[in-house]
Structure formats: structure tokens, C-alpha cells
């Protein structure tokens, strides 16, 4: 049948294997918002496809944590990651409720980084170059995060002197200068991989950036939390504010770093690795000249609101910033996956989709569930190579 969206002749199914459009439905109304605000071309696939390429059950603009941060997980693994995230957060908050604040702090600081490590292993994201990728993403992020935390202690007081410091000085150092430095450090590692042809799509860039960002956040938070471990298992403090702080550390802060740096790195990949025709696909959000200030703004805002707002209000605003960063990351991942739709030319053999378990032709999208096949794990196996078969002739001009 002919897809009403891309006009290719494609196998019968729920979704077009070439562009991921839901067959049997009209071409959806375009994202006018993305076009108007971010300059996304109205003819681009981002503006035309509303379902998130890595998880067609969700819209592109839905700020879902697990599907945005770990987009290459198949549906079955997604559940395990969701349970781990929610369960981990429950453990952190339970430790807080038991007034075991130092233990809650450490559990919170490692929760999302732990899931990121499992994700890297689970989907084999580093393919055949594990050392190089892990070194410049997770290890780089953790090492610079630890170094950054020590630098913070050197340039800005963390002890009693902090109480004598003026609000203006705190705002300048802890609200502006140090967060700016953190963005540069988190991004520097992944950019080392930018010249490698092996990692040539925006999804790779987003994954590397996210890995570096979350490892940085985890490393820095653990070093800072180390000082807090000096006052016994149950230091004095009110449970309510501590629970809010633990939620900050377990979810809000690492998600902000991970999503923002992931989206920023993805924008670099889109600009410098994507085919020339795709570089405008994300509008202004895909151009480093706009993406860098936006990323800095998100990280700066995250720091400033913690200085200036009451703790609960700060958490609410942080979660709103998380949502913005997650949607940006999703758009980058989405565009990265749709790029491959344009690149792929021939159908492969019939395979079993790892996401839904149904048969589909190997191309770009699963014809049953609509997931982008490039969003699924990259596992090398002993299976013999498969030869692509030519696609059916496109009907008409």
C-alpha cells in the first residue's frame, strides 16, 4: 500500500516501515508550535510525526523520564527501568522518613547514575568500542564531577564562612560561574567522540552527552554529600525539607544535567554529523549557537532557584526545568531516529521486533508497533550477515 505521509509503497501493517506514519490515518496536523517558536521547518518529519520515534505509545512532546533518558530500551526492559527508578526513589524517601538522611543522600546521588550504567550495558550502546565510549562519557563525567566538587570547595566556602558570604557573591559564584563551568566540563568529554564516523547520528551524541551529564552530577553530589556523613546516621533536621532535598538529589538535579547535556550534545551531532539536508530538522534547537545558551540557561536557572526560592518551590521549578530539558532531548532523539528513515533505502528480511515481538520488515520502523528500529539495542551476534532486498517500486511519481 502507499503511505499517505511519505508516499512510498510499503508493506501492509499498522505503521509505515519507512516514515513511521500510522497507516490508515490521515497525515496528522503539524506541530505549528514547533515551527513558530523554534523554527522547525514545517515539512520536516519532526513537525509531521507526533508519536515519539523511540516509543510510539507516547507523543514527542511528553516529558516522560525513562523513555527520554533511556530511549533505546525495548518495551520489556522499559518496565524494569521504571520499577527500578520508582523503587529507588521510594528507598531514598524511606531512608529520609527514617531520618537516616546521610544514607538517603548517597542512595539519591547514585540512583540515576546507576540506571544509566545499566542502560549502557543493557543496550550495548558502546557497540565495539566500549573503552573509548565509556572513558569519555561515564568516566569523564564522574572524574570531572569529582574534580569540580573539589574545585567548588576551593573557590567557594562550604563551611562556616559560607554564612558570612554575601548573597550577591553566592549568586555570582554558585549561581552563575560554577554552573557555567559545569556545562563546559560535562560537554567536553562527549565532544571528543564527535569526529568519529562510527558514531554518526544525533542519537549517539544525545546518549554520550546524557551519560557524561549524569555521571558528572552523581560524582559531584557524592563528593559534596561526603561532608554530610560526618554527623552520624541521624543528624538533626526536619523530615519534610529533607525529603524535598532528597527528591532534588535523586531525581530533579541528575535528570536536569542528563537531559540538558544529552540534548546539547545531540544538537552538536545534528549540526556536524547529520546529512546537510537534516541539519535544519530541529530548527533553532538543533543549532549549537542557540543550543549552548539554552543549555547554560537551564543549568543556571537550576542553580539560581535553589539559592533564591524556598526549598519546596525550588523543587517544583526544578521539575518544570526537567520537563523542558526532557522535551528538548526527546526532540533531538526523535530527529536523530527520523534521519535514519531518510538514510535507509532497502528493506531487509522479515525480523522479529525486539520491542513488540511481532514480525516486521527490517527497515526503519516496526510495521506493527511503529518503534524506530534504530532506537533498539545494538547487539552484535554470531548470526550470519543478511542481504538487503530491494524495496517495492514506489507507486507513481
Amino acid at each position, binding site marked *: 500500500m502507499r503511505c499517505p505521509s511519505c508516499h512510498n509503497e510499503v508493506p501492509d501493517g499498522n505503521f509505515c516501515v519507512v516514515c513511521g506514519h500510522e497507516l490508515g490515518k490521515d497525515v496528522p496536523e503539524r506541530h505549528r508550535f514547533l515551527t513558530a517558536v523554534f523554527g522547525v521547518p514545517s515539512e520536516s518529519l519532526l513537525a509531521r510525526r507526533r508519536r515519539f520515534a523511540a516509543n510510539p505509545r507516547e507523543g514527542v512532546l511528553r516529558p516522560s523520564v525513562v523513555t527520554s533518558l533511556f530511549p533505546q530500551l*525495548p518495551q*520489556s*526492559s522499559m*518496565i*524494569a*527501568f521504571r520499577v*527500578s527508578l520508582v*523503587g*529507588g526513589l521510594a528507598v531514598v524517601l524511606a531512608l529520609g522518613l527514617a531520618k537516616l*538522611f*546521610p544514607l538517603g543522600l*548517597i*542512595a539519591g*546521588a*547514585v540512583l540515576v547514575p*546507576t*540506571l544509566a*550504567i*545499566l542502560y549502557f550495558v*543493557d543496550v*550495548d550502546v558502546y557497540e565495539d568500542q566500549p573503552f573509548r565510549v565509556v572513558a569519555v562519557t561515564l568516566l569523564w563525567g564522574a572524574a570531572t564531577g569529582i574534580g569540580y*566538587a573539589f574545585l567548588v570547595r576551593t573557590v567557594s566556602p562550604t*563551611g*562556616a*564562612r*559560607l*554564612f*558570612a558570604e554575601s548573597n550577591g557573591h553566592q549568586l555570582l559564584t554558585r549561581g552563575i560561574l560554577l554552573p557555567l563551568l559545569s556545562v563546559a566540563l560535562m560537554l567536553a568529554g562527549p565532544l571528543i567522540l564527535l569526529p568519529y564516523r562510527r558514531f554518526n547520528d544525533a542519537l549517539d551524541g544525545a546518549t554520550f552527552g546524557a551519560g557524561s551529564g549524569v555521571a558528572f552530577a552523581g560524582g*559531584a553530589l557524592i563528593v*559534596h*554529600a561526603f561532608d*554530610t556523613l*560526618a554527623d*552520624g*546516621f541521624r*543528624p*538533626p*533536621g*526536619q523530615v*519534610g*525539607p*529533607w525529603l524535598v*532535598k532528597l527528591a532534588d538529589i535523586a531525581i530533579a538535579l541528575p535528570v536536569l544535567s542528563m537531559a540538558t547535556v544529552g540534548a546539547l550534545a545531540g544538537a552538536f551531532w545534528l549540526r556536524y554529523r547529520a546529512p546537510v539536508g537534516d541539519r535544519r530538522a530541529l530548527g533553532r534547537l538543533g543549532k549549537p549557537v542557540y543550543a549552548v545558551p539554552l543549555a547554560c540557561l537551564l543549568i543556571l536557572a537550576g*542553580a539560581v532557584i535553589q539559592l533564591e526560592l524556598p*526549598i519546596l518551590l525550588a523543587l517544583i521549578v526544578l521539575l518544570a526545568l526537567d520537563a523542558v530539558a526532557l522535551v528538548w532531548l526527546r526532540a533531538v532523539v526523535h530527529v536523530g531516529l527520523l534521519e535514519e528513515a531518510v538514510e535507509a533505502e532497502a528493506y531487509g528480511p522479515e*525480523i522479529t*521486533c*525486539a*520491542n513488540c515481538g511481532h514480525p516486521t520488515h527490517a527497515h526503519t520502523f516496526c510495521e506493527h508497533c511503529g518503534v524506530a*528500529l534504530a532506537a*533498539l*539495542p*545494538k*547487539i*552484535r*551476534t*554470531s*548470526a*550470519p550477515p*543478511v542481504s538487503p532486498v530491494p524495496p517495492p517500486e514506489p507507486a507513481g511519481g
Partner: protein
Amino acid sequence: MAAETGQPRPRGSAGSRLGRRRTLIGAGALLALFVGAAIGVVALRKPAPAKVLCPPGAPCAPPSGKPLANLKTFRSPAGFRLEYDGSTFKVQGQASDYIQLLASTRYGESLLWIEGAPSSQLSPQAMIKRRIDDLGGRVIGNLVIDARPWHRILGASVGWRAGVGANYAGTIDTPQGTADPVTVGSVAATNGKLTIAATYVTTVTDERHRRGVLTGLDQVVNTARWQGDLGF
């Protein structure tokens, strides 16, 4: 057994490497590992319990007055003065109505903040509240009353003039993460015209060293004199 060919399986047909069960076990194990390590660190760094030298409820600390020789003097136009040892304390900040003194040792930092205000504007209680509320903005939640019996302030006074006081505790909060636990004590007294408050913040948690630090701070507070006092 098939030979390794290194060829990729068609993208989309490969499932995840770990699977649901191993992911859950892995996440739980890693989290437990880090929490276990944190338990070890907290146990190792936990301050030793304080030896209570005095019977509960009775002030019995040794006299902490010291000859006032070779000390630096701070005179406030607000109407008070005090003396401090320049080799122990560094002036962190000062204005006409306050001075901040910082003492740093390898066990932590301590800040002493002595300030004065007309009693018609601020009573001793109000002055303590204002300072504690202000300092509380830099800890998680707010400063809470430190209920540890060995941290109680017994016989609160400023410059040997009886007043009010209390101890508080909290954990420093910054946008970059949590930092040191602190204890804060504030005492204030008035002569009817001028209220003087002395507030300390210390990150020293080891009780033995903390006691030494507080004795040093106490000596400075005891030198405070109101305008019109003998020896002003």
C-alpha cells in the same frame, strides 16, 4: 556452536542484554552496595559520644575569663566593644554594628558573629530569632533546636550580663549539593538600651575539639562591654 562472524544482526531484532530480572537485580545490588559503603563511612566518621562532665541542669564549666592583654579591640559606634585574640581569629566582616570573627582549625571552621542593636528595636529574643532565621536560609529546611543534652547552653550571658540563648543544628545546603553539618548557638543580653547578640556557627563535629572551640568563642563573648560599663 556458530562461529563468531562479527556481523550485525538486523537492527531492531536484538533484545536488551540484561533482561528485566537482571536489570532489577543489578539496580538493587548497586544501590545496596553504595548504601552499604555509606553506612561504613558514616560509622567511621561518626563523632564520638560526648562525655558529660557536669551533672545535668547545673552549670559547672570552669571559668573561661582570660587576662585581656595583647588582644585586639573592636569598638562599635552602636555602643559596645569586645576583645579578641588576633592570632586565633581573623576578621571576616565588620560594620558599625557588628563584627564577624573566623577561627579555622583542621577540625573545621567556626564563625562568631557579634552584633548590637537598640533594645527599643530588638529584644534579646527577637535578635536571636532574626539571626537564626537569616542563617537558616543556608541550611536544608531551617535550623532546628539542637536537643542533644551536651549541646545545651547553660547560663546564657554576654559580657557577664545574664541573657537568653539556645543551640541549633542543621546541614549546609548549596546548589552544588549538601555540605557540612553545622551547630549554631546564639546568646543575647541587654542593658535596657542596647541589645548585644553573639552567634556562633561551627562545623567542628568532634565533641572534644568542639568543646575547645566553644571555650575560645566564649572567651571573646565574655569580653563584650556595653557603653557605660566599668572598663568600657
